[in-house]
């Protein structure tokens, strides 16, 4: 993993919209989500929560239940470690604070209105609107809950303290874990659809996007007075 470099994120005169660590972690996470959701569907199918819902076997990962489990307990390491690195990077580089905060409720409403009238501007990739901020913050929090609920499903006795968070009911944890998956799938549909509608956002997540002067970044706080190294 590339070292977190203050120069590229905050210190230098300019940096990429999506610094290399962000791009790497984004795509590693995409692969991890693919593995976790596909194998999770295989595991779910063996004992469904909702009688009306079976995932198509063609979309599930793993020939039999044990292969779904093998994939899931492999993917969990990638998802969790990559997720922890991402959270640490977002917090310590200041990226979360600059790009995802604050979320103005008034702007949220006006942005939803503009989007519904197809009048939403997206010329400026460097600035997330309130809907984007809400979705990104939301999906990060759901990712955290999916790891906590997953850890509880894996070890409800060793981590009985976590099970207590869910009212000591194992099936509640299964349901929460399932709902996290459903929410993430919903996010992915919107996220991918919008990225395909505005392809330069997709390209930016590969190339890094436009160079942005850190100090003039909209919504950014002033650069640190001294280097942190």
């Amino acid at each position: 993993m590339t070292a977190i470099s203050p120069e590229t994120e905050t210190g230098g005169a300019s940096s990429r919209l999506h610094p290399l660590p962000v791009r790497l972690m984004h795509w590693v996470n995409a692969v991890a989500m693919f593995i976790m959701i596909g194998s999770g569907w295989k595991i779910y199918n063996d004992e469904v929560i909702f009688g009306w819902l079976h995932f198509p076997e063609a979309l599930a990962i793993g020939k039999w239940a044990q292969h779904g489990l093998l994939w899931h307990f492999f993917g969990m390491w990638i998802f969790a470690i990559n997720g922890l690195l991402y959270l640490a990077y977002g917090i310590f580089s200041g990226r979360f604070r600059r790009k995802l905060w604050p979320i103005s409720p008034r702007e949220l409403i006006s942005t939803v209105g503009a989007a519904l009238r197809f009048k939403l501007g997206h010329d400026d990739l460097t600035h997330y609107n309130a809907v984007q901020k809400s979705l990104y913050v939301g999906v990060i929090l759901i990712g955290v809950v999916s790891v906590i609920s997953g850890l509880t499903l894996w070890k409800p006795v060793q981590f009985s303290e976590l099970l207590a968070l869910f009212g000591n009911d194992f099936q509640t944890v299964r349901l929460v874990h399932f709902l996290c998956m459903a929410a993430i799938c919903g996010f992915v549909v919107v996220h991918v659809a919008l990225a395909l509608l505005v392809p330069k956002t997709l390209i930016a997540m590969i190339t890094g996007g436009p160079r942005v002067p850190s100090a003039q970044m909209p919504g950014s706080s002033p650069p640190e007075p001294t280097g942190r190294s």
Partner: protein
Amino acid sequence: MTKIKRFPSLFRPHGGVDQSVFEQNKGLVELIGRRGLFRGTLSLGALTMLTGCDWGDGGSVEQALRAVSRWNDLVQAAIFRPDHLAPTFTAAEVVKPPRFNAHYDVEDVKPVDGRTWKLEVSGLVNDKRSWSIAEMMSLPQQELIIRHICVEGWDYIGQWSGVNFRQFLERIGADLRARYIAFRCADGYTEALDMATALHPQTILATKYAGEPLPDPFGYPLRLRTSTKLGFKNAKWLTAIEVTNTRPRTYYSDQGFNWFSGI
């Protein structure tokens, strides 16, 4: 669904099976063996054409995933809390009858004759004499009302009683520094525990459910019940235990399920 699907050609019984059954069904066993070989050859051939489409059905990808699974065994052993008790419940919460789990349907359970049954003991123990059901019942009894969690995702609360396994191991003079206990069952099933789990206070050799002798589908006359493992680790219809330092192969881990399978 109460049945765990299995990959038919991976499992071979390895000990514990009545040899006369093999003699009687020799033709069938050979037929299945040939089918497995044929199928495996076909899969291998298909893989060479469909590179990138191997999602874990045998082959190098599955081997890699199984290596991760063995790493997960180590992680689970490391985070295991030897004295941390699983939650227990009241008799009012007990599900009767319990939910059946095996790799075959409940109608196919072959009852064990308790009068001729005995538990054989082998491996790193001082006293290797066999135990009858009456002898097991005469030992001090312990009751556990605990949650059974199946690898498939379902759970229920059950009330089990029998002999504390640690006390039993001490009684037969087992080497408690050994690493594993292997279990063999009347239906050819095999399972195993790590020693830390075997010595956990909520691990018993159960003879009763809800105060009554175990019903046939649930392991009569003797089964393992521990609060810190998935359902399938709790072997039923026990016929032999062995204390060993060699990691025992088990029915489900041979097919790719995680060996440790702690909860």
